[in-house]
């Protein structure tokens, strides 16, 4: 898994490339902690275009981060998720908790 992080004017963009199995989810959690807890930035786009695999550990990280940023008036926008990843969100019953976008530009622009 490769995580890249870009700071834009109105939000931060995390791009996740590869596989987030349960052993890798803590690295994603640490990245959210860095952005939310340390940098105090609460508008975050997750670019999922190259995310190949993710387990419930990743979903738990997203839910926890979403709870925190919502409490600060921010949000998490999910961009370019594959149909397979959208199916996992659907099975987990958390589709309604997030906004999904077809492009990163749309996800950034909606903040």
């Amino acid at each position, binding site marked *: 898994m490769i995580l890249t992080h870009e700071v834009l004017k109105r939000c931060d963009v995390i791009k996740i490339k590869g596989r987030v199995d349960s052993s890798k989810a803590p690295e994603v959690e640490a990245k959210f902690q860095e952005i939310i807890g340390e940098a105090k930035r609460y508008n975050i786009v997750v670019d999922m275009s190259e995310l190949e*695999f993710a387990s419930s550990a990743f979903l738990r990280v997203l*839910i926890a981060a979403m709870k925190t940023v919502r409490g600060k008036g921010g949000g998490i926008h999910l961009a370019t998720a594959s149909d397979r990843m959208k199916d996992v969100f659907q099975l987990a019953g958390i589709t309604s908790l997030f906004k999904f976008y077809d492009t990163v530009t749309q996800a950034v622009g909606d903040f």
Partner: protein
Amino acid sequence: MQTSRDLTVSSDLDNLPFVLEFVRLCCLEAGLDDDATFACELATDEACTNIVEHAYQGREGGKIYVRCQCTPEEFIVELHDNGAPFNPAQVAPPQLVGDLADREAGGLGLHLMRSLMDEVRFEFDGQNGNTVTMIKRL
């Protein structure tokens, strides 16, 4: 594939990528399509995580025994451990509806395993430990 392939790893989450690669290769060898392969991998991730976190309670000295079997009708992933008894009935089902504030993080793994596979069975034997059998029908 051969009728059965086996892998044994220690109960450390860092071994999870190797277990998932093993299952993925077995799926490939058995001719499963991408969706079925993804389902088997994800269910295996959830089951292994349960073993590490619940059966072995984070202790790394234990073993996880993985067996993939393929018959003309089914692809079977079986995971075995010698940890504490795991009783799925004691895991509260996840809340799948409602607002963000009401959502608890637990129970999702078990729910995904059951949703992704056609059959999931848990067995505990006081001498031999836990076995979870996950079946994808072909």
